[in-house]
């Protein structure tokens, strides 16, 4: 049964979606996309690798669990008491998958036929954990292989080394899958404890996008969702210093050209403020160093960077950073030039023409995302988990001013809070 329904419309984008509050506590976000063959669904919980310390209303004290449980849970939920979930999807033709990030776990499927049955499967298996000593033990080897495979990637290693350099205590500094050592301590009891705390429907959302019948989707929810007690899970992160832990870290690897990540550590944000700061950071990071910027031109033409240079705004529950990455023989010089450019912008102000071009370019990218069912599902999932309106981004972008950017540049690009991670050959 639905207790609340809100329709969100953006005429400029030619798109809309509806948010339903289900009586079980689940928030359901549906986007009808006429003419598309694919239906994508995401059943997601606000639970990722950083949420290792938590308590529910039923717990007196916080508990701290080993690293890697969120990811381990993601693997294990695909195994039902009587069968493997992939066998069920096989009958509908859907392609099922899942991923765990630092602050969310998302179960997805994509299909062109029988989305109704596939949705029933998705809702059923995520709500039906089945962990035994035997099946938990069997998964340990597979996850250890996954960790080993990832450790063969110098790009990934460079990124995680940066997180270790920026963060002293925050669990974001540890690989999402944990370590081969930390997963040794995971057992069925721990998995059930974490599952019961974080897979409470009040802490979860369901997103479905494609050429769907919304009433039909809600009827499937009514049939498959189980009553869920609001346990009010509360997470705790360790105290994190404002400054970075280390300025420069290096590691040896077999690489063609040396890799680098440069990260500006920023205090974390929540809700509407997070959306705003993320937008400002995205605009500023482009103003500073996108491929049409004077800084990029100088660095590229001096051979300090090549065309794999890029940037991202990295954020989530309890962490926020602006990161530049690429290949260079002189990564520290790249860092110094970025810092000089930040200081110049702080002193001279924003280039108005470039700001308007970036605004237009970002608007184009936002509209183009509505060409793609999977992108819509992912964006709606991110917005839903943060409890914000997907279309707020377009409105905020339209109304963003140079003054707002100048007001937050000191927070977003503090030149004293920079770490560099280098992978050397």
């Amino acid at each position, binding site marked *: 049964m639905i207790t609340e329904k809100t329709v969100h419309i953006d005429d400029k984008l030619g798109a809309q979606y509806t948010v339903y509050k289900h009586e079980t506590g689940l928030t359901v976000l549906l986007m009808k996309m006429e*003419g598309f063959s*694919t239906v994508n669904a995401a059943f997601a919980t606000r639970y990722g690798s950083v949420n290792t310390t938590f308590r529910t209303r039923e717990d007196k004290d916080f508990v701290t669990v080993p690293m890697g449980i969120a990811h381990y849970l993601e693997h294990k939920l695909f195994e039902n008491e009587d069968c493997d979930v992939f066998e069920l999807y096989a009958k509908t033709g859907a392609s099922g998958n899942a991923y765990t990030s630092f602050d969310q776990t998302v179960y997805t499927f994509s299909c062109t036929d029988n989305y109704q049955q596939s949705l029933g499967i998705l809702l059923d298996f995520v709500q039906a954990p089945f962990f035994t000593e035997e099946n938990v033990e069997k998964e340990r080897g597979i996850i250890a292989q996954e960790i080993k495979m990832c450790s*063969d990637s110098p790009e990934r290693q460079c990124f995680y080394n940066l997180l270790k350099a920026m963060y002293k205590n925050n669990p974001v500094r540890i690989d999402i899958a944990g370590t081969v050592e930390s997963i040794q301590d995971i057992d069925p009891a721990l998995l059930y404890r974490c599952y019961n705390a974080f897979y409470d429907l009040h802490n979860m959302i369901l997103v479905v996008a494609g050429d769907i019948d919304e009433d039909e989707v809600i009827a499937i929810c009514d049939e498959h969702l189980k009553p869920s007690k609001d346990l009010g899970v509360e997470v705790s992160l360790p105290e994190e210093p404002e400054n970075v832990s280390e300025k420069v870290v290096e590691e040896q690897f077999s690489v063609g050209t040396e890799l680098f990540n440069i990260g500006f550590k920023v205090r974390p944000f929540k809700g509407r403020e997070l959306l705003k700061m993320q937008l400002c950071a995205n605009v500023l990071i482009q103003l500073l160093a996108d491929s*049409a910027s004077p800084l990029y031109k100088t660095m590229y033409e001096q051979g300090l960077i090549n065309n794999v240079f890029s940037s991202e705004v990295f954020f989530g529950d309890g962490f926020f950073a602006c990161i530049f990455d690429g290949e260079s023989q002189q990564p520290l010089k790249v860092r110094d030039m970025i810092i000089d450019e930040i200081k110049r912008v702080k002193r001279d102000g924003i280039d108005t023409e470039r700001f308007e071009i970036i605004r237009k370019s970002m608007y184009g990218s936002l*509209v183009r995302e509505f060409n793609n069912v999977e992108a819509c599902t992912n964006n709606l999932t991110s917005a839903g988990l943060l409890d914000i309106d997907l279309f707020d981004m377009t409105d905020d972008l339209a109304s963003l001013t140079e003054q707002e950017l100048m007001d937050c540049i000191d927070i977003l690009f503090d030149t004293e809070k920079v770490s560099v991670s280098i992978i050397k050959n």
Partner: protein
Amino acid sequence: MSASFNRTDLGRGIGLTRIYDDKFKSVSAYIFFINKADEHNIVTSGFIPKLLITSNGRIRSRTELNKRLMKLYGSTVAVSSARAGDNHMFGLCANSLADKFTINNENVSGQLTDILLDCALYPDVTDGGFNEKYFGLTQQDVVDSIKSLINDKRSYAIIQARKKIYEGEASAVTYYDGLDLAMSLDRKGLYEEYKELLKKARIEIFVAGNSEAEKNVPRIIEAFSKIEREPDDDIVFRTPSPLKSEVSFTEEKIDVRQTKLCMAFKTDNDDIYVNKLMIMLYGGVPFSKLFANVREKLSLCYYCSAGFADTKNVMFVDSGTDKENCGRAREEILLQLKSLADGDFTDEELENTKLALCSGFKSNNDSISDMVAWYLTQLTRGESCSPEEICGRINAVTREQITQAAAAMKLDTVYIVSPENDGGEVS
């Protein structure tokens, strides 16, 4: 399906394909040059498009070109490339919002089409060679990208394996062996090669996305009607790879933690879709023989999947495993192929695989780039079938055809990349 498809032969070795669907809010144009790969042109054809998108004869600054694209609502001009058997298909692709989705109904796609055509046909040339500054910078990019192959160990293993699988064939050549050549190229020589390419390569143009793109087609046709053409003989896409008299086995040791096992099988069965379906059942879906047994039941690896190079009749299996499990994984991969040939699968498994394969095919309708890739692949097969038409063929495949296709697959090459500091050979 609401998409419309139409291919026109413009003559002189140039084809134009239109794929329109108004559910898309953007438009795209692709220009592919197609030629038979050799050790030289595999590098130059990686180099030339990178230069072409850096600047052009009218916009001679990389920064200015990027600025112009950003002004057009973040439009893009990028490099697009793919292999089809012994041939290399590469070129430029451009994507922009359809005009009706801009804030003031601006003419974005028309301006982008002009930029794309300038990049492809009117490059930034001085004194008989590509722009000296950008040539040097792009050369460094090419060198860096070749050196960076080692960064991704799974791709590295697959590329190394290809050289053994296709030994003596054009398909064996790889961009990543061209470091010395890339460093020795000069801007004038490369410009001459570009002119030859424009004159002799087969050219396939795709215009796709919102049907508003049609208004840009006349200027594309006109631009290509003006270029000098002496096309080479028509390209042959299907060149099945011959089975070796003895299985080739190679183990390479590098700085890696997880062992990569690559196995190639060859067949004389030419039915592309029967082979594709069989390979999906073998190792292309989560309930496949390889995933269900080698990974899930026996926990021998993290990944183990199979794919098909249809122009070469080659099935490829790659797997990431612990070194001590590599021998067992290899045996199990062979055992699972035999079980398929022996008919050890249910009718339900076969029907489910058809469903999964068709679902994947039909999902191509939802992305402009996937639709272009689909019809480009159709071109290499001498057809122009829609995903729905191919699903009709898939659904007609029988058990017997599957067992015969599995039985026809013969092991040809095993290539292993393993840790250098782990001691001992793979068993």
